[in-house]
């Protein structure tokens, strides 16, 4: 292999570098197209070597992603993408690993791999395409489907409580969680770029529309008419304001989050919480990911991004370096001839 140094001139990337040879086969109007376009733009923006990018997926509509982007790619097994990606990253930490998954793939069959990957804080970017339905099997409810949703496998309505992916990330001591919608390319790009730059497991939940089996599932959040009132876009160091005139904001009362309106009930700008995604102990992150309609707007943007712990792969490489330095056994012959040896 050629050696690549940081000083080597790298040809600037364009979106054409990532265009696949074959056709993209998602349904017309699927939210996945917007995510693909946003990721390509972010990759161009970030620069670097295109050969160092690996996209890994599980099974589902979202998981066809690696076939639609010209990088190294691995289309894995249902739910197992995180485990495959983990092996790739540990094997070669210089690779930039993206794991593309869906709400069924990561929250149901791959739930165990998902929480443990987050817990280990392996340096990879996990993008969950959350359309709250099983698309590729044609319309059964998923672990993120809301209560009451009528689907082919819940004809009388879902009676299970849905997972909020961010809650699992917090529960697994995740270091990065962000949320975006497929209808806002600018927001998507900002969030995906922040995820790529974070060292550790970055989880991005994209509220994505399935035109065929769960059309308009996120409509209340994404519609032009309602989005200002129903989305709270979080930015570090800025007050949590939303609504057309930015008069509404998130306040804390009796240790609970509440929506306050500036000028009403004695609420002033000073009452509005200021977002700090970096504090690992900040329980507000947990409260923010749980916020949902109709009582609250849905939190968007980078909700949590802490550089509080080193990533697994960094720690592992440190152990490898220390072990190499310490041991006098440098090769197999050394090992074979060490310890209890008997010369006859």
């Amino acid at each position: 292999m050629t050696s690549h140094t940081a000083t080597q001139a790298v040809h600037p990337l364009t979106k054409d570098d990532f265009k696949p040879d074959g056709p993209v086969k998602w349904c017309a109007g699927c939210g996945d197209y917007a995510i693909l376009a946003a990721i390509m733009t972010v990759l161009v923006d970030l620069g670097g070597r295109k050969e160092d990018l690996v996209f890994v997926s599980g099974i589902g509509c979202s998981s066809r992603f690696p076939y639609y982007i010209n990088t190294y790619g691995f289309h894995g097994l249902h739910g197992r993408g995180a485990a495959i990606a983990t092996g790739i990253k540990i094997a070669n930490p210089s690779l930039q690993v993206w794991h593309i998954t869906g709400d069924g793939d990561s929250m149901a069959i791959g739930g165990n791999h998902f929480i443990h990957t987050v817990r280990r804080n392996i340096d990879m970017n996990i993008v969950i395409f959350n359309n709250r339905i099983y698309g590729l099997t044609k319309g059964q409810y998923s672990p993120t489907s809301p209560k009451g949703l009528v689907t082919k496998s819940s004809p009388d309505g879902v009676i299970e409580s849905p997972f909020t992916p961010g809650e699992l990330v917090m529960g697994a001591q995740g270091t990065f969680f962000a949320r975006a919608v497929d209808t806002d390319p600018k927001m998507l790009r900002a969030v995906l770029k922040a995820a790529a730059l974070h060292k550790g497991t970055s989880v991005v939940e994209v509220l994505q529309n399935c035109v065929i089996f769960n059309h308009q599932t996120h409509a209340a959040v994404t519609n032009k008419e309602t989005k200002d009132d129903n989305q709270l876009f979080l930015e570090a160091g800025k007050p949590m304001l939303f609504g057309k005139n930015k008069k509404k904001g998130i306040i804390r009362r009796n240790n609970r989050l509440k929506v306050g309106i500036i000028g009403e009930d004695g609420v002033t700008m000073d009452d509005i919480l200021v977002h700090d995604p970096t504090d690992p102990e900040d329980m507000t992150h947990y409260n923010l990911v749980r916020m949902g309609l109709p009582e609250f707007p849905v939190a968007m943007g980078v909700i949590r991004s802490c550089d509080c712990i080193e990533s697994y792969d960094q720690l592992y490489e440190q152990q490898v370096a220390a072990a190499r330095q310490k041991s006098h056994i440098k090769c197999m012959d050394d090992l074979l001839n060490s310890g209890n040896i008997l010369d006859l």
Partner: protein
Amino acid sequence: MDNKNHRIIELEHVVVKLAGDSGDGMQLSGTQFSDTTAIDGNDLATFPDFPSEIRAPQGTVAGVSGFQLHFGFIKVETPGDLADVLIALNPAALKVNMKWVKPGATIIIDEDSFQDKDILKAGYLSNPLEDGTLDGYKVIKAPITSLSRRTCMQLGLDAKSADRTKNQFALGMLYYMFHKDLDFGGKFLDEKFAKKELVAKANKAVLESGYHFAENLQEFAITYRIKPRKEVKGRYRSINGNTAVAWGLMAAAEKAGLELFLGSYPITPATEILQELSSMKHLNVKTLQAEDEIAGINSAIGAAFAGKLAATSTSGPGLALKSEAIGLAVITELPLVIIDVQRGGPSTGLPTKPEQSDVLQAIFGRHGESPVVVMAASTPANCFLYAFMAAKIAVEHMVPVILLTDGYLANGSELWKVVKMDDMPDIKPRLVKDNDPDYQPYKRDPQTLARSWALPGQEGLRHRIGGLEKEDVYGDVSHDPLNHQKMVKLRQEKVYRVANHIPDLKVWGESAGDLLVVGWGGTYGHLISAVKDLQTEGHKISLAHFNYIYPLPKNTKEVLKGFKKIVVCELNNGQFIYWLRAVHPEFKYLTYHKVQGQPFMINELKEKFTEILEEF
């Protein structure tokens, strides 16, 4: 030795069994004694036999842990059927092991532990020391617990810790009985308890107390010596199957110029492979203790994609969980070594006991047309060679390889002649140069049909693989019916052609005769011992023992047709015989199966073979 009547008898080989409560340190003292005999130049084989409970109720038969050691001046092939010497630290240990001792054997018991309540707890109705149970044996009663306590008390060790040293007292008696090097025993303890000085000191003192106690005992007027082996020259070490597997994989990685990755989940009796490799970071080994068996193998597949020599280790229940991912490795045609240390099944079964009941799972246990190479190691030490060969085949043929060992091989140890890396065969991974204009993901070597291995990070080779069917040569997703059939046949043929690269099936004995004994995997030692004995008695009997199962060696048919009768011996209900019948239906096969979670006994095999030979 001031005993005037003291005599030394030379023995060719001897079988010793240490038995006590599972907290009594039987595995530790067993390893200590076997290492001592190895240093002394004896050949040896060991078999630890322990319950799956960590500490079952003290003094009950459920909690008995044993360690059997067979050492000799001659080549030792098995840990031995029955013991010449049994050490029983309590009545339960005696009760469990009485059926595993030879008539007239020496039985050393801790008389302090034969109180009425202990005897009842073990399930004896009367005291076996008095009721005639031990008639015909040479019984040596020693106050092991009280003398160990006394020794420890002088050193200021607490009573609880003192009771943990009694295995050393019994061992000291063995050191005396067999003229073994007490200094080495002490050195072993120093290393074992390097961080607990007092414990090391107390154990050594108790070991010596046992030795001197035996020295002064009338019953030890006769002691035994097993001379070092003469016919062997060179450098040896004692190794168990799990360590040998770990080292074999490491050796293969070094030879191939690759780094080793193991993705694994702890499971008895395979866990030590993960443990051993996790302490080898200095030799470029990376391990992941995954969240489950599935993540273990999937992380290994990811590591293989990224260019590692990738492996996963497990036992039967774990192999079942890995089936789906093995199929992924089959279709992505990545090199992967899957180690299955077989145990008694189905389900949780007998976790600590050996069995050979995963061979059909290994050959067939996946959905779809999903051929993989299946191999089996046959002695603790040759786990090194077969792990090495499994890795060589995996990377040279771009195929998953399942290597079967078992609990007997994994925990048993034997003396192994240390290899030199220069003497190991070369391994040539099918790596590709950057920007190779001819690279296509599924373009194959015309001889082996193996595809090439382009790694993420390489320039000019970006490609995508996955679980969907691949277009021949180009590797794009393809649902074309004829392409699917072609790819199924190519993957199958690739595995068949591995037969061109493996050694012929060897026959121990004449290549024609009355009876061919057929075995595979961990039963080799017992089968060869039985066959050799009967050959010495003049029978026309030979052994063919398989290490390569899928595909079978090319000369298999040639070997089988040289004999009037064939008997297939396995520790299962008849699995390898299914495979032989499927591949070579032209022969008639007799069977001998045992499914007790125990290895064969040489004597039962000889009886069976004699019975067949007498039918002529």
